[in-house]
């Protein structure tokens, strides 16, 4: 049953499991986040009502998506925001490079943006001679080490204080070694404020885009988002095309459930609504705002009524915080931009269900993700659906790479399974043998070998229940 393409996640997860420091870092962090989220929702009815409302808002937005995008674009353009569209990450990168070049910009400070991670924008810009500096503290920490985020909202969550202290003392000029979090934060502040001051351009993501007003909403605690978008003369924002909602009123409940689900905060330090560049009489703010709307597979996901729910995601990270697999292996093991449960359903839909079959089976389908998701994305059901897509070529399906994860060994396994379970006579013979000789199965037999890595061999009972009830005379009609 192990196709080659299932090995990727299994291997990197196995490696991660051997790192006790990493496991301790994640477990501690996730436990904290779970507790804090719980404290924010003391009343189960309020929570469910808010989830229902949030789900309805996101579903409505998606049902109206093309119209809302057009309305948003028209309004934003009227406000003075320049809107661009990109079908692929390459196109989006080129667009951004073009904008920066046209302004002669050489340095870019970045607020946190997962879409820019999706685009691998930093590498792309570096290659073209433009410095792209992450300014979110977590992103800054991992950029110093050339790493990628291990969590969508807490990118450096895999690192502990000592690791960061060592890293800062080596990589920041004139920095001394300290494990004091306030001092470490102050060091980063000093470096980054200078960068904000000097940068030619700033880049940000977008949490919500409001169609009726043409507004970009940014949620943050640090203020680096505001710095990146308001200090440099040029602001470039990037967003996935699913981010648009109809009205500003729609944003309020989404924002509320986002911060509470994500980090257990009732509210973030800043909620920043950007509607226009520097206007007449204004003394600051960017002279120009550009927005790049990225597709990168989203319109294809949109085409499927069930899979469309994937696009409801508001990137709160609650699904990973509550995931027993993520908690143990951390974000890097997924080898994907978006880790955890949302990554498991999103990545295969973008990269192909066959090549990322590994992610689809990296779940026990325990359902903890769907239980906490603020917009009630049925992640386990979507996983099952995508497992189906990976192994079958259903007509009408538009899923990328459908059927390419099929292997003849798995095929045969299920065919034999069905044969045995469809024919009670055959099932009876097999279970008869299992009860009499199951003990004798070699520990090295396929499946048993994997099962017994951490467990004893399962031993069937002496008689099956089918046999026992017959002997007992339990009526069968």
């Amino acid at each position, binding site marked *: 049953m192990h196709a080659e393409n299932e090995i990727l996640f299994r291997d990197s997860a196995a490696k991660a499991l051997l790192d006790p420091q990493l496991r301790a870092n994640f477990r501690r962090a996730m436990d904290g986040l779970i507790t804090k989220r719980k404290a924010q929702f003391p009343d189960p009815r309020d929570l469910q009502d808010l989830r229902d409302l949030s789900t309805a808002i996101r579903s409505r937005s998606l*049902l109206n998506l*093309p119209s809302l995008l057009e309305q948003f674009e028209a309004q934003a353009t009227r*406000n003075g925001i320049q809107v661009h569209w990109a079908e692929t990450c390459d196109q989006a990168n080129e667009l951004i490079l073009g904008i920066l070049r046209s302004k002669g910009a050489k340095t870019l400070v970045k607020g946190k943006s997962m879409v820019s991670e999706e685009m691998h924008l930093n590498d792309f810009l570096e290659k073209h001679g433009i410095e792209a500096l992450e300014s979110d503290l977590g992103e800054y920490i991992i950029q110093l080490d050339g790493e990628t985020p291990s969590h969508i909202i807490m990118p450096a969550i895999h690192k502990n204080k000592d690791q960061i202290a060592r890293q800062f003392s080596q990589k920041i000029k004139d920095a001394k070694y300290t494990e004091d979090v306030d001092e470490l934060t102050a060091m980063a502040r000093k470096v980054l404020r200078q960068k904000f001051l000097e940068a030619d351009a700033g880049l940000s993501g977008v949490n919500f885009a409001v169609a009726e*007003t043409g507004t970009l909403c940014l949620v943050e*605690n640090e203020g680096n988002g505001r710095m990146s978008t308001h200090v440099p003369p040029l602001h470039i924002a990037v967003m996935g095309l699913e981010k648009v909602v109809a009205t500003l009123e729609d944003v309020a409940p989404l924002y509320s459930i986002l911060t509470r689900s994500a980090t257990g905060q009732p509210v973030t330090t800043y909620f920043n609504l950007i509607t226009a560049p520097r206007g007449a009489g204004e003394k600051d703010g960017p002279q120009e705002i550009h927005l790049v709307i990225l597709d990168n597979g989203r319109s294809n996901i949109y085409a499927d009524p069930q899979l469309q729910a994937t696009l409801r995601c508001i990137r709160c990270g609650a699904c990973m915080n509550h995931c027993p697999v993520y908690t143990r292996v951390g974000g890097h093991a997924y080898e994907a931009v978006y880790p955890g449960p949302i990554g498991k359903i999103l990545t295969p839909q973008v990269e192909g269900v066959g090549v990322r079959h590994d992610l689809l089976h990296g779940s026990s389908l325990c359902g903890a993700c769907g239980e906490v998701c603020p917009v009630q994305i049925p992640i386990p059901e979507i996983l099952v659906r995508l497992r189906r897509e990976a192994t079958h070529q259903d007509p009408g399906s538009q899923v990328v790479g459908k059927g390419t994860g099929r292997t003849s060994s798995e095929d045969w396994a299920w065919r034999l399974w069905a044969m045995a379970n469809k024919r009670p006579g055959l099932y009876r013979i097999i279970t008869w043998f299992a009860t009499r000789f199951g003990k004798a199965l070699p520990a090295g037999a396929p499946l048993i070998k994997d099962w017994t890595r951490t467990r004893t061999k399962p031993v069937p009972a002496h008689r099956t229940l089918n046999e026992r009830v017959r002997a007992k005379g339990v009526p069968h009609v």
Partner: protein
Amino acid sequence: MSDARTAILGRLRASSQVGPLPDLDTAVLERRHWPISERAERLRKGMEAVHTEFLDATPADWPGVLRAFCDREGFKNLLFGPTSEAGSILAADWPAGGTQLMPYDRPVEAFKDELFTGVDAGFTGTVGGVAETGGLLLMPGPAEPRLLSLVPPIHIAMLKASTIHDTFWAAIKALGWGRALPPNALMISGPSKTADIEQTLAYGVHGPKRLIVVLVNDLA
């Protein structure tokens, strides 16, 4: 890149599903309601939990309360918007000596370095507050530039108790932000903070290290 636009919208349109839109039941938001007399206290509790400091004042004495605070802290200057409503009241009788009022009346390009390194505190008014979670609503613009509440290491904001709304949702509706948003609008709940190092809270990472609210009780 209008090709991309056409292609993307075309694909979305082609697969747009028709169907009834789900209803939006906002009862859960409407349930969040406090009498006006209790809102200031609730806001204060929420904001103090994230290290915001409060100064109590009346409509008549708030400039004096603010001035006394600046003197106590030993600020050499306070950046403000001279043409804003709160700013003009403040400037009207700001005693000479001690903390100097510094008007933000030029384009930022003219004094960017000074703004980043030579300002002790920034002062703004607010257009309202949010009781549920604690939060100040700001509408930067020509009279109160955007960076006033961001770049100086200390942000002082004046809030009138009568302008505190129940929730952010209620405030958006009351302020009419959905109809015509200013170029920039903000909700601020505390000083800048981060928990990116081992989930340990640290204040003052990029934005202000302290947020001081001059809470004006105008409900009498």
